[in-house]
Structures are given as C-alpha cells and as structure tokens.
C-alpha cells in the first residue's frame, strides 16, 4: 500500500470503511483482510494483538447487549465491524507516511495548519500513552491500585488525569515554541517538500476503490 500515491491511500481507506459500514459480512471481511495485508510487512501479530486488546471489550459489550436483546446475529456483525474498523485504522496508522498525507491533504485543499495539527496530534498519541504509563507506574508504586473493580479503577485513573493533562499541555507548549523557533508561522505560505507522483498503478487502484465503494452502496440499496 505504501507504494501508492497518498491520495490513493486515502481513497482506499474510504472505500474499505464504506465497505465495512454498508457491505454486511463480506464488507467486514474485506476490511479485515485489507488491514492484515497492509500490515503484513510489519508483522501483523503486533498490530492485531494491540488492537484486539483495546477494542475487544467494546466489541464484547455490543455482542452481549444485542444477544440479551435477542439479536445475536446483529450483535455479532456489529462487534465484528467494530473490530474490523479498528484494525483498518491501526493498519493505516502503522504504515501511513505523515509527510505524504500532509501533501495529499493539501492537494485536496485542506489548510496546512489543519493537516499538520492532525498529523502532529496522531504522533502525540503514543507519547501521551507513555506518559500515562509512567504516571500509573508511579501510582502503583505508592500503593494505589489501578486495577480492581470498575469504581476503584475510575477513581484511580481520575487521579492521573490532572498530571497527564499538565504533562501534555507542557509538551504541547514546548512543541509550539520549538516550531516557532524553527520559523513556523500559522497560516503563512509554506513549501511542502513531498512531491506527489501519479502512476498507472495509482489509476488502477483508484478505479478499483471507487468501483468497490459504489458497488457496496448499490448492493446495499
């Protein structure tokens, strides 16, 4: 996927998401397969494991709730859809090139400040996760349980929110200062170094993605 033009990558992502949302079981299966193929070069085990760990509880709640309402089939499909969409998102985040995406979004006339905020925000997510891990380690070493029952957990995690917010704000301020000290001016004209090169394979992939999305919607109707 990474060999494709970033605009095509975005089109492919949109098509797969449309498929998962409106394409029933085949659409969900295609989305999951597309995610696995995308992360294959990285070793799919890591991405799949991490995604399933975080999303499985939500999927399980959906499944159980629908099953209790006597709609097991619907619950199973929705749970599978949630997992597949999470996998697609994780796979895209794992392989997408931020610089190329910025170039693609600028081509789509999305303002640079907005695209940059999006990419920088995505980059800060794992950093914030590491901060939270340090804070929770500090809490556990002071005898504060962050496991336990749901109420205990909620109380313990809420204790971590203020310091996490402070750390994140401080990090954001430092980043902002560093950007300005490197000549960044919000709203000012910039050059983007990444050049978009359209190949025949991009045309083929775009046609396939658009046809797939249209097909899913048409069949769904």
């Amino acid at each position: 996927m990474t060999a494709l033009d970033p605009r095509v990558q975005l089109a492919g992502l949109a098509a797969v998401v449309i498929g998962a949302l409106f394409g029933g079981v085949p659409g969900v299966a295609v989305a999951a397969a597309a995610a696995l193929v995308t992360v294959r070069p990285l070793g799919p085990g890591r991405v799949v494991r991490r995604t399933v760990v975080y999303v499985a509880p939500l999927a399980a709640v959906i499944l159980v709730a629908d099953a209790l309402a006597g709609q097991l089939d619907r619950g199973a499909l929705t749970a599978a859809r949630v997992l597949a969409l999470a996998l697609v998102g994780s796979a895209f985040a794992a392989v997408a090139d931020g610089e190329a995406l910025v170039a693609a979004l600028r081509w789509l006339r999305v303002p640079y400040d907005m695209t940059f905020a999006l990419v920088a925000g995505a980059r800060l997510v794992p950093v914030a996760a590491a901060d939270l891990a340090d804070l929770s380690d500090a809490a556990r070493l002071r005898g504060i349980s962050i496991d336990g029952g749901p109420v205990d957990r909620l109380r313990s995690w809420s204790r971590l929110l203020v310091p996490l917010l402070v750390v994140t704000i401080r990090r954001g301020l430092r980043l902002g200062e560093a950007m300005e000290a490197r000549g960044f001016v919000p709203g000012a004209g910039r050059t983007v170094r990444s050049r978009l090169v359209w190949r025949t394979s991009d045309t083929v992939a775009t046609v396939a993605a658009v046809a797939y999305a249209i097909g899913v919607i048409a069949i769904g109707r």
Partner: protein
Amino acid sequence: MDSLGPAQPDPRSASSIISLRGVTFRYPRALAPALRYVSLEVGEGERMLLVGPTGSGKSTLLRLLIGVVPHLTPGDLVGEAEVLGLDVRTTPPHALAARGVALVAQDPAETFVAERVGAEVAFGPEGLALPPAEIDARAGEALAAVGLGGFERRRVRELSGGEQQRVALAAALAMRPRLLLLDEPTAHLDEATARGILRSIDAVARDRGMSLVIVEHRLGIVARMATHALVIAAGTVARTGDPRSVLADVRVAELGVPVPRSTLAATALRLGEPVPLAPEELAARIDPAGAASIPAPASRSDTTALRFVAVGYTYPSSDRAAVRDVTFTVVQGERVALVGPTGSGKSTVAKLALGLRRPDAGAVELSGMPTVGTPMGELATAGGLVLQDPVRQLLAETVEDEIRLGLGHLVPSDARTRIDDALTRFALGDLRRRHPLTLSEGERRRVVLAAAVARRPAVLVLDEPTLGQDAHQRDALVHVVVELAASGTAVLVISHDPEFVNDACERVLVMREGALAADLPLGGDPRTIAAVASAGVPLADVPATVCLMAERGATVAARSLDELVDRVRPREVRS
C-alpha cells in the same frame, strides 16, 4: 550578587551577532527578575559557553536570544537586546529563525514535528517557502554534516538518543544559521554518544564559521571548544573570560557550577597555566606523593534486597527482548549503579526490580517477595522509584498529601511522623500546602524524592537523578543516597553521569543490548578502575586520572578529589 570578575565585556558591536546591554527580564508574577542587567557581546564565529547553577537564568537567556522571551513567554523586558542586528523586543522567533538563529533543545523527542528524518529536517526550510529542490539539497547537506546521510526515510522515534539529537542538530543546520543556540544538547545521552555529538557540533561550527552559545554540563569537553565562557548566577553575569581561567576560579565552583574535577584538582595543587580541563591534561602534570595504599573493600550486609535470576522480558509491543538472561543480587544498604548505552535495558531492569513488569523468564525477588504472584500493593511497600521527570510522578494536590499518598499502609501517627521527617529533611516545610505542580523543577524533584524516601523502601531506584541539577544539588543527592544506604535501603542508580556514579555508588552493573555485560566493584585502586574502564564504563575524572597515571607507571590510589589531592604532587619538569 557581587561580580566575581570582569563581567562587562568590551563592546564589539561592529561584528556583533549578539549584543545585550543592561537587559533585565521578569516573568509575570515572579518575585525576582530571571535576568538582571545582563550585558554581553558575541561576535561572528565566537563560541560562548554559558554556565551557572540551576535556576540562574541560563534557559531564560537562551529563550531571549531566540525571541521566545518575550514573544511567546511574556514578561517585563528592559534594556537593549539585539541578535543579528535585530531588536529581539520587536522581532518574533520565526523572524529570528528566518534570519539565521537556530536552537537545539535538551530533549529532541519533545520538539520533533515529523515522523521521518527527512521531513523533520525539512520542516524549517519549508517554512521559508524555499523551492522543493533547495529544501532537498539543504536537508541532504545537513544530514551529511552530522553523519546521518541515508537516514531520510528512517522514523525518528525508532532512532537512538544520539541519532535523535543529531537529527535535531541537522534540522537546525538546514536553516543555515549564523547563530546556533544549544541548550544542554547532550543531557540525555551517554558519555560516548555525548562526546560524538559535541565533536560534531564543534566541527560544523568551525567549518561554517557559526557563532555558538552552548549551555552544557560536560564542561571538560565543551570548555575546550569554546572561545570564551560566561557565568551567570541569580540572573546576573558573574564572570566572563577564557574558559580555562573562568573554570579555574574557585568562586565559580562555589556558585554550584559543575567544574571538572580535573580543574578543581589542578587548582588545589596550584598547577598554574594552562589549567587542565580533563584527566589526560591533569595526569601528565602530577606524580604520586608517596607509596600507594590500596584500601580494603568495605564489608557488606548479607541480607538480599533484590535478586534477579536468569530474567528475561519482552515488551508486548515488541518482537525483541528488552532484557535477556540477567542475573544479579543486591544486598541491603548497597549502592549500585546501572549503566549502559541508551536502550540497553536499564529502565526495564528497574521496572522488573520493582514489580512494575513481570518477567517472561526467570525470577525477580524484591525484599524476599517474588514479583510474580505477589500483589502490587505488597511489592509497593518494598520498592521506590524516582523518575528523571518529576511531573510524571506527582499525583496529589499538596506537597504534604503527595508524601502521605504512599503511606496508606501505616497507622496515622506513624505516617504523620514520617511526613514531618521528610518535609524537614528535604527543606519542604514551607511548601507543605502548595500544589506540587506549581513548584519549581528543583522543588518538584525534592518532593518526589521525599515521597519515595518517606516510605523507607527496601530498594530505591533513581533514574537519571542528576539531570538538570547543579553541583551543589548533585552533592546533596550523593549525601541522601549514602544516608539512605546507611539506613539499610539498597539504592539502584541509573545514570549517565560518571561523577555521580563515582561519588554515590560502590558497584556498577553494565547493561548492553539487554544483557548484563559486567558486574564490578567501584574503587580507587588502578586495577579496579582499569577493570571498570575495560567494561566500557565512562570514568569520572579522578579514577580516569589514576588510570592514566598507572599507564605511565605512576601508581596512586584515589577515588575522591580530596584523596587525589592528598596523594599526588605537581610533576617536576626536568629541563
């Protein structure tokens, strides 16, 4: 404070890159100004070393020179401040950057804006709206200058600490600066990597005729590349001049500036000019004053505080083992350094030791409790951790509550006693009702340390405790470590600071690529020091001097500065 020497340099405005005259700056709501009547001149191609104790105003001065102060961090600015001929008061940071001022920060990971190396280096030139071909050329040239040619497509977060700092340096160089500001660029790096970075900076600055202002605590290295030094204390210029003579001034060391031990020894021995800055310069000019006496190793407790047996661990998000087959034991009251390159597994060992991670293979015992199978609440009573960034450890709303937080297992009267002891011991009594996050960085560190010490853990881990600390604070920390160990706590120190390791620890564990590469005692005799050096552990100045003297057949045993000064004399030079 009173000026220690020639504080006001002669004006050289004709070729001035920096010209400050009577600059005073006060942060909003601050009681005292961060800078007071600062005047200084830096000319084209000059390299200025900026030193001073913690909180002296060094960072504020750097932030003023790039325009962050007063544009992004407002406050009252009085006096004349010109950089590259531009008035800092009216020129915002981006305009200064466009004209040729660049900053390299302490922790590059906090300032990276892009995912890949090429994009990171190109970010600045993109802001100048240069044609893509020129941006490519600048990025390639800058990366080549720092030895990272071919790294354009690598992800910055997957690079080592040293490589990340080189990327930050390349990003600054891509702006083709005339003035490069460096704020402790090697603070997070191990000794060997730091030396490499500083050599690169020196070479690039000389090659391009750039002016430099560098804040750095590895003064033995940086003082040799600087054309002059400026000492700042309590916001005022306390001393300026040739770096060697500035560092040889005993009053500079008294301020808390981490003057190299080689220089302090030379001053105490009255070796005269040129003042040595490094062990190789000192060792060549001294001889033993008498027969070497090798001290006997100190006796140890035989009660185990921490035991690792064939421990292995792989993070769930990784396919590579972070720790492999690590076995060692630490007894009560022992002071052990854990050293090794960035990414060698030191922090993972610390987390395994405290039960924050459970081993995949082997076993860890903390104070007799296996970390697998023992609830975290019980392990927490035996282990303590002080991270390098205190903000990531502060959880309560007052200093007093912060200390109380870890004492829930005690009856209230005992907890009260320990809180009071900790507040007194770490001079926090006046701050007990303050919110920890409103305190200064140094005060926050004291709070975190107080909270850990109050719990009287069997094992206390200190992760890079001297980061951002001046010499006085470092000495105080050594005192705390020694005192804690004397009371029975085993202290495990992760540090890139050879002087602190030498002062505070009695044994060193060397990690390399997740494995324990060496487990050695620290001592003052040449044989012990040689063994530590051959394990790749960077030596502090005094042991390094002893080692270098031994290489030329001059045997002396010394570990501390006082021991060395007592046991050597100036070398007689025969004409």
